[in-house]
Structure formats: C-alpha cells, structure tokens
C-alpha cells in the first residue's frame, strides 16, 4: 500500500465526532429550547456532562455553593458558554496523548494551539470579520489542525526529508508535506470534517487554511487562516514547522484590518487564554 493510500485508509477509520454536538447545536440556536430537553440529550455524554458541572463550579462563575444537577448547571452557564463547552469537550478527545510528536510538539501543545486559534477566531468573527457566526468560527478554530493529529505518524517517518526540503527550498512546511507525503494536514483535515458531516463551508475553511490566498476567499476561510497565522506568530503550540507558512497579507485590506488591530488581537488573546486555562484546564 502506498503512503497516500495508507493515509486515506486512516480517514475511513477515524472515530465519529460525538453526535450530541449537531443535535444540541441546532437546539441552542432556538431561543425557545428549554433546559429539560437539552439535559435529556446531554446527560448521555458523560464527558460533556462532567465538563458542564466542572466549569459551572469553576471560580469564574463565583457561585456560593456547589452545583451538582445538570439542569441547574445549564441555566447558570447560558447558551453561549454551553456551546463552547460542548464543542471543546467533543474536540478534546481527539487531541489526547502524543498526537503532535511527529511535528516535534510536546504533549498538549497541539490542543493548546487549537484552543488559542478557536478563541481568536471567535473574537475575529465578533469584532472584525462580518458574516461569520462566532460559534462556527470557534469550532473551525478548534478543528483546523485535526489533520495533523492523523498525519502525525507519517510526518514522523519522513521528518528529515520534510525538514531538508523546507530549509533547502525555502518552502512552507505544508508544501513539503504535500510533495513528500502526497497530502497536507489541511487537506486531510478537510476530509475528516467531511466524514464528520460538518457543513461544507467549515470543511472548506479547514481545507484552505494554508492556502496563500486564503485571506481573499470566503470569510470563514479567511478568518481561520488569519487566526492560525497570528497564533503561529505568537509561537503558541508551534512545532518544527515553525513560522514556515505562507499568507498573502494584503488580503486583510478588504476587512479593514490594520497591523495595529493584529497587535491588539495578540495582546487580548493572552488574557483570553488565561481565562480558558481556568475554565477548560488546557
């Protein structure tokens, strides 16, 4: 079996994304949805239930007593935080263990990079890039590098050749992946989102997040590429690929985003990351 066949075969066996996500997300968009109906579905996912209770009892919410019922917790955290908890808990299970060591990432770093990108993407959707739902932006941010988690072992096997190509040819890491493995982590990620039946715009944003022209494409794609570029610039969860990624910065003009805005986003992200660390224990 060739390398590319082996990789594609891997996608066939990727575990499904928790079904509760799609079911609950639709309900949360409807303001009439009541807590009982939500709890009815969420209670069957132990990880999400545990996380809702844990986060509800975190000092961030400043409750005077411990909450132990899911119904009560759902009222306290509110719809927006609940969405974040559900997507974060559902994604986290795919980032456990040494999933980034092929990229020379320490344990937990790929997840930290993903959370940072998610938080920044949400901020961008609220402040700078019109027409993108902030919850969708957060989810794509969390999952944009999911391909790395599965390409990891193949990158490890061919690591030397990839690095030589990056250094000698001054190409981006993704270009080297594509040439030597036959597929990039972005392409693989797009396929995985398709398998998980995420909407097409989300698949496309993950697939194209390393396209040098990403900032000129659909708003969700542009936002994902921009958020990733800034998190990489800050060095959060960055491995051997370093900053060897290509982006055509002039694409930012259409959104009216200036270098000063980028500086501010980076400064704010550090504070937001501290809060996320408290809430999600990343």
């Amino acid at each position, binding site marked *: 079996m060739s390398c590319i066949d082996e990789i594609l075969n891997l996608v066939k066996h990727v575990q499904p994304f928790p079904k509760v996500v799609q079911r609950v997300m639709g309900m949360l968009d409807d303001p009439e949805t009541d807590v009982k109906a939500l709890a009815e579905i969420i209670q069957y996912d132990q990880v999400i239930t545990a996380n809702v209770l844990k986060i509800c009892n975190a000092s961030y919410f400043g409750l005077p007593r411990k909450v132990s019922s899911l119904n009560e917790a759902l009222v306290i955290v509110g719809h927006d935080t609940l969405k974040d908890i559900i997507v974060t808990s559902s994604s986290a299970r795919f980032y456990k263990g040494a999933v980034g060591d092929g990229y*020379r990432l320490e344990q937990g770093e790929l997840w930290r990079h993903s959370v940072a990108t998610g938080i920044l993407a949400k901020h961008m959707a609220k402040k700078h890039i019109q027409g993108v739902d902030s919850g969708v932006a957060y989810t794509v941010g969390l999952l944009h590098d999911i391909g790395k988690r599965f390409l990891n072992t193949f990158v490890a096997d061919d690591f030397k050749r990839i*690095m030589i190509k*990056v*250094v000698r040819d001054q190409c*981006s890491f993704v270009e080297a992946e594509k040439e030597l493995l036959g597929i990039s982590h972005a392409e693989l990620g797009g396929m995985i989102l398709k398998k998980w039946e995420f909407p097409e715009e989300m698949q496309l944003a993950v697939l194209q997040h390393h396209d040098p022209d990403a900032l000129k494409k659909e708003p969700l794609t542009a936002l994902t590429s921009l958020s990733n*570029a*800034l998190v*990489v*610039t*800050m*060095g*959060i*969860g*960055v*491995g*051997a*690929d*370093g*900053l*060897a*990624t*290509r*982006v*055509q*910065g*002039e694409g*930012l003009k259409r959104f009216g985003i200036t*270098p*000063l805005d*980028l*500086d*501010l986003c*980076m*400064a704010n992200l*550090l504070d937001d990351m501290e809060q996320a660390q408290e809430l999600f224990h990343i």
Partner: protein
Amino acid sequence: MKLVIGISDMKVSNQADDVLITYSLGSCIGVVIWDPVAKVGGLLHYMLPDSSLDMEKAQAKPFMFADSGIPLLFKETYKYGAVKNRLIVKVVGGSQIMDNAGIFNIGKRNHAVLRKIFWKNNIMIAKEDVGGTGNRTVSLEIGTGITRLKVSGRGEFEL
C-alpha cells in the same frame, strides 16, 4: 532548578544551578543578559514592540512590550549586583511567517524597537540570532552563562 519564562514574562536569578528557559519564540523576542562577575542573569520574552498600544495592559503586563519590558529586565539584574557595562547581551527570535506584503512583520518591528532602545542606552549586543521562519527555544545557565539555542530546521547549538 529550571525556571520557565512564558510569553510576556521575565525572570532573573543569581542561583548558580538555575537554568532560565523560554520555549517557542515565534515573532516574539527573547533577551538574555548575564553578568560574568556577579553571576546574575535574566531572560525576557516580549511579544510586541510598543506599550502605547494599550497602556492599561502595559501596566498589568509590562513584559508584553519591548519598551516597558527591556528596562525592567536590566533593572532587576542590578538589584542582584549586575553592572550595566559588564552585562553580556544576547537577542533571539523575531521570526515571521512568509508574507510578501509585510503585514505580519511583527518580528521585524519587535527587533527594530529593541535596536533603537539599545542604541539610545549604549548597550552592545554580543550575540544575535534573529529573523527567518524558525521557531526558537533559548536557555541560560546562570552559573556559567552558557546560552543554548534550538531553532527548528537548524538543531540545537550554543550561542
């Protein structure tokens, strides 16, 4: 003891067996200073050039910015007996992603401000490893002043 310096953070030590280390400098800059007589060293990991971006933030996190962080790094070592003209200064980081338009040139701006501050204050840089697209990890052994640098694609070496 290993002391880890995060993003927008700084640490100083005069304990011979301490090692100061900061991981994953992208566009951020790491400033390493060491006095070979007082055997005092410090490491700063700043993220952005100019504190005028957000003065409130600069008050809360002065090590986020070059102009507020660098003076504090030097002053902190003076408290442990370091002398300005003895300090050996090394500068690393300031990479950037591949963008022909230069919008993401945060690394370059971070480095330019540092050079200006050092020039104004008569501070010489002994060693420097700045720019490119590599990701850097730098460490300083307080007892010996040995500075080790790891750059993606170039391996680990003494600076």
